[in-house]
């Protein structure tokens, strides 16, 4: 097998020099410009407009107390797009997706008393607790009707929510995320699959978490250690692989609801 040394030596040789020990800093001839509106409300409006264009649903709430009832309303009103058919565990038409709802156990969601509201409405909340078995958790997530997460940030330009497998660091002080400025690397209560496997995804976003464009976000990410996974999610899962015909909800959730606080 080729070793790192040989591999890199060959590259350097082709480039006509000996291997460099470190890359020179890259400075583009012009820095990326600051763009877009700045006001919280303008950003929120733009975010909503863009997300709606790509089949996402935005629910505006004015008060923290409205969050849990809104979640319940979404769950009751918007059953998963044909959950019984599209779930692996339900191929035989048993249709028992059940009333399970998975959610992040995370400070982003803590204050809203979501579990109690869910239980009162007949839904069964599930979250990962330290010490739980990961595989078993994923299996439960797979059976859940919906996933509930908190956003770490959002990008107005494209209607994108940003979700880390652990909190993002690097906030410039205004972001009311749960992460500290260094990023804490290991918040166990989240889970990548919560936003991925269930047919419905509900994400909580605060206005002040919205930035206009991705460059701002990447700069923030660069200021702290990266979580093991960060996703930009823009609308529900989609494909155009069948005769270029758009279809929603191929592998990921078929419905995306953002509760904007």
């Amino acid at each position, binding site marked *: *097998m*080729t070793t*790192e040394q*040989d*591999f890199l030596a060959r*590259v350097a040789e*082709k*480039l006509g020099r000996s*291997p*460099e*020990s470190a*890359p020179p800093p*890259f400075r*583009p001839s012009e820095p*990326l*410009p600051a*763009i*877009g509106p700045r006001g919280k409300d303008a950003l929120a409006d733009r975010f909503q407009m863009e997300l709606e264009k790509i089949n996402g649903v935005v629910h505006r709430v004015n008060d923290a107390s409205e969050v849990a009832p809104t979640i319940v309303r979404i769950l009751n009103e918007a059953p998963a797009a*044909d959950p019984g058919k*599209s779930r692996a565990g*339900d*191929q035989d038409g048993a249709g028992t997706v059940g009333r399970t709802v998975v959610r992040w156990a995370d400070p982003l969601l803590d204050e809203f008393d979501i579990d109690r509201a869910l239980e009162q409405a007949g839904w069964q909340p599930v979250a*990962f607790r330290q010490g739980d078995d*990961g595989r078993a958790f*994923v299996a439960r997530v797979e059976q859940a009707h919906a996933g509930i997460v908190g956003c770490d940030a959002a990008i107005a330009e494209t209607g994108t929510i940003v979700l880390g*497998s652990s909190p993002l660091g690097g906030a410039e002080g205004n972001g009311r995320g749960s992460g500290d400025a260094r990023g804490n690397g*290991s918040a*166990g209560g*989240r*889970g*990548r*699959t919560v936003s*991925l496997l269930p047919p419905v995804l509900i994400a909580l976003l605060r206005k002040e978490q919205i930035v206009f*464009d*991705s*460059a701002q976000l*990447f700069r923030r*990410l*660069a200021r702290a250690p*990266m979580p*093991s*996974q*960060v*996703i930009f999610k*823009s609308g*529900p*899962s*989609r*494909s*155009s*692989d*069948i*005769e*270029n015909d758009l*279809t929603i*909800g*191929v*592998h*990921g*959730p078929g419905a995306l609801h953002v509760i904007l606080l």
Partner: protein
Amino acid sequence: MSAKTPFLERVEKALADDHLRGAVRYTAENLYLKRKAVMADLDVLAEKGEALGNFEELRARAQEIKRHTLAHLDAYLKQAAEQIRKNGGVVHWAKDAREANQIVLEICKKRGAKKLIKSKSMVTEEIHLNQALEAEGMEIVESDLGEYIIQLARETPAHIVIPAIHKTRRQIADLFGAVAGRELATDTKTLAGFARATLRQKFMTADVGVTGANFVVAETGTLCLVTNEGNGRLTSSVPPCQISVVGMEKLVPRLEDLAVMLNLLPRSATGQKITTYFNMITGPRRPGEPDGPEELHVIFLDNGRSNILATQYQEVLSCIRCGACLNSCPVYRQLGGHAYGSIYPGPIGTVLTPLLQGFDQWDELLQACSLCGACAENCPLGIQLHKHIIRLRGEAVAQGREHPLMRTALKAVHFAWTRPGVYKFVARSAHLGVKPFTRRREDGSEYLDNLPSIAAGWTNSRTMPAPARKPFHQRWAELQREEGAK
């Protein structure tokens, strides 16, 4: 003339397949128009100060990023590798396809893994990973809807972004029906729903997830996957082990550079402002996290790429595989991807394939281009694909790879036409030389038909104007006399 080459046979087959041509034309046109519209929007947004730049500006930035990265590629690879290791990943180096496949196999063996699931990746097609694994008795399932379709059809992708571009819903329903063991309806929802349910099971039981990477950020060792369906996320979240095979040119220096790329890639590929998922993976699952792979392997692949460095073709390595050049190519539109015979079809395939794999099998591809330049115009990295095709033709000709009759004809033209006296003589007598092939129309005008030898290539399907009895340069003298008389 000599017998048909395999390439020409494939071309003939494609041109005779109305299904295929209809499907390819429809989708390529659609993607082309969507791209065009979204780029026009981008220019408007940039004008309003609501985009990082218009198409030209972003393209220039992307070029600058890639040019810098390629110039220091060894150092960026080193930096990326160090970061990946720091994040808990394992880095491997493969100089060719064989080594890359070997590495994947060994990782699987060590884990006792038998079942793999893969998200869409061109580089694993390039190294024929599926065949290598299947030969060892492993199961590897494609999870991108389009890739899944062509895997069931036992074909290769016909497009680098839309693998099943050539398949009709009827054909897809038949393929899925064979898996389901029952007849399926042909509507998109049923078909996509079936794939979702089937593949979900595969995801839940897979031992290893295999991905490529659209970008790798050197400063953080972050792998980036751009998808719409979510298969990239599933592959990198559910199976206990993730292996990413990455062409060594995929690096960008900094996270911030992704902003430029992310503005260009989805727009160029599918006409979207952004894809549904942009997934950044920095290491395996961390302690205390409930899910994500416990092992993350990154295989950096050369496979001929280093031969392109520091040559006149170097910019070809800045390709982000968006497919815009395919969608805008008038030849691809007629043929679809399979006629090219290479994993990479269309303009980028025509250039990249002989560069990676040599002329022996691939010099003919260079002829499947009218040099219209639409590819270069639409390429988000401004890669001058048609210029490279000319340069490669030059290399092929220098190696004597050319039809002998064509060579004779071109050499004769060069001899005669670089001597103005000879040129004039030939021009004045041309109409005499083609007399046997000259036909007369009802109105008395003349044309040529049934020309012999290589010129039959023209007249088999087209008439040709007859040469003038008096070429313009002779007519010029008359015009001057007329002028003098005024």
